[in-house]
């Protein structure tokens, strides 16, 4: 079995709202999976069901082969959760260290390992010098990092992170991303990441799922999704000939492109099936005596893909 999380036909209804609507999704072991969607899409609800905090109305989730409804305790034992608004979920009456120690005990971390693990997490997340203070005295970012440490305290096989960097400044976010990246490198831990931040997904995730209004719209590698939604590719051409309008006319007259225009000192064209058409376009330019210095593709970022997928829904 290589599936770490298997979601099948998952539906969750609250009184009036269907928060999750027939979602099926597999996440592989060792994968960093990004779960993307606008507000109220059903991301957190899905995570809460996977973490056995909510019960599905229909469908199932299996985490490492354990069913969330039939074996909830086994699921929780191997699962780490950074809840939404995780920064504000600490016991202010305990020190940061004691918070982690308490959860270590609740997760059955052997006493001889617990101390080292806490130290290691505090060290890595740069919380060490604040360890004996109450989280109440922490900034939001520090609290968030403590939540991240808490979600990893038992070295879980599967980690659900609901907007891990939402309250962090860019430097903190980067550090946390690096932390997740390092953890994921071993390939033993599976990460399921809810986020609005496309840059985060782009930087971290092996695969991504788009959810909108409870419905899973797309799943795939960021690269593949881009290709799928960008059948029309955009290229810019740099030429030695300063008379760009002439180049535009030549490209246009090939009848191969969707559009062509001048932008600054370059010619931009859009084309379907670039593999076969680009050589012909370039040959036409060369034959007319125009020297091509450079051809570069405009790669759309994930944000553009996202807007297209979600917008189209």
């Amino acid at each position: 079995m290589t599936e770490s999380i298997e979601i099948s036909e998952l539906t969750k209804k609250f009184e009036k709202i269907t928060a999750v609507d027939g979602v099926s999704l597999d996440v592989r072991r060792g994968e960093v999976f990004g779960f993307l969607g606008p507000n109220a899409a059903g991301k957190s609800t899905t995570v809460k069901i996977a973490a056995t905090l909510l019960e599905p109305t229909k469908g199932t989730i299996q985490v490492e082969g354990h069913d969330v409804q039939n074996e909830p305790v086994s699921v929780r034992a191997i699962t780490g959760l950074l809840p939404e608004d995780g920064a504000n979920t600490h016991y202010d009456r305990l020190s940061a260290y004691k918070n982690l120690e308490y959860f270590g005990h609740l997760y059955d971390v052997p006493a001889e390992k617990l101390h080292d693990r806490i130290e290691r997490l505090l060290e890595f997340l740069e919380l060490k010098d604040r360890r004996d203070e109450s989280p109440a005295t922490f900034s939001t970012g520090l609290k968030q990092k403590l939540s991240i440490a808490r979600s990893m305290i038992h070295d879980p096989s599967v980690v659900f992170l609901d907007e891990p960097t939402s309250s962090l400044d860019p430097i903190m976010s980067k550090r946390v991303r690096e932390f997740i990246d390092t953890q994921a490198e071993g390939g033993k831990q599976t990460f399921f990441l809810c986020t609005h931040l496309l840059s985060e997904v782009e930087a971290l995730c092996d695969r991504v799922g788009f959810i909108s209004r409870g419905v899973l719209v797309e799943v795939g590698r960021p690269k593949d999704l881009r290709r799928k939604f960008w059948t029309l590719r955009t290229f810019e051409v740099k030429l030695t000939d300063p008379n760009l309008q002439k180049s535009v006319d030549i490209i246009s007259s090939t009848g191969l492109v969707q559009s062509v225009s001048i932008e600054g000192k370059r010619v931009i064209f859009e084309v379907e099936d670039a593999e076969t058409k680009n050589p012909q376009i370039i040959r036409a330019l060369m034959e007319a005596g125009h020297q091509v210095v450079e051809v570069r593709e405009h790669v759309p970022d994930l944000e553009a893909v996202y807007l297209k997928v979600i917008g189209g829904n």
Partner: protein
Amino acid sequence: MWKKAWLMARTEIRMVFKSRQVKTIPIMVVIMSVIFGGLWTYWTLLMGLTNPADFNFMTSTIMSIVIIMLPIMLPVLIAADSIVGEKERHTLVPLLATPLTDGELLLGKYLTALIPGLLVAYGNLLLAVAVVNGIVLLFAPHLLWVWPDTLSLLQALILPLLFAFLAVGMMVIISGRANTVYEAYQTGGFIILPAMVFAYSGFLAGLGLNWMIFYLGIIILVIADFVLYRVAVKLFNRDNLIVRSG
């Protein structure tokens, strides 16, 4: 089951005693036992209520405030702080994400309220008995051990237990509605009130301490405890707790 629940209760007890309201009760209880209990006993003797029946009646009446009413406030406040407070302070979700079973969680909450509640109630009972009989020994030795009689003693032993149990069940049930510990404290008043009525019903009926009222009260309380416990078990599951707290 007990190991995990105890682990949880141990940490929670340490935490609830950081609440000023919770901390105040044991201090108040001890002060009342020593000063109020001592002065009252001395005054009773001074007024010449030195025949055993009168002395026991007066002392039982007044001391039930000290050994029953005050101590039962503690589990009420603790239960409010540890159950509704968990919601107010947003610490419930990570706790529910641990491998604790629903039963362990609920047991942990019961232990959190019961253990300090009973320690304070019984410790205070010992103290009150010592103070009253200490005064008696000094000024009217023939009244030694007249108070507490068996019935007062049984009341002081059983009622804090039954009321503490009631308090936890009650707080679990209201935790769906109450969002702040403060609201929960107010609801706690509904527990103190029947306790007061019960503790004084014998006196209100002009019967003094009365075995029949005692048995009747115990039966009612045990039934109430059981019913509330069953409701609490039913409500105390993750889906319900999370849905209602968002």
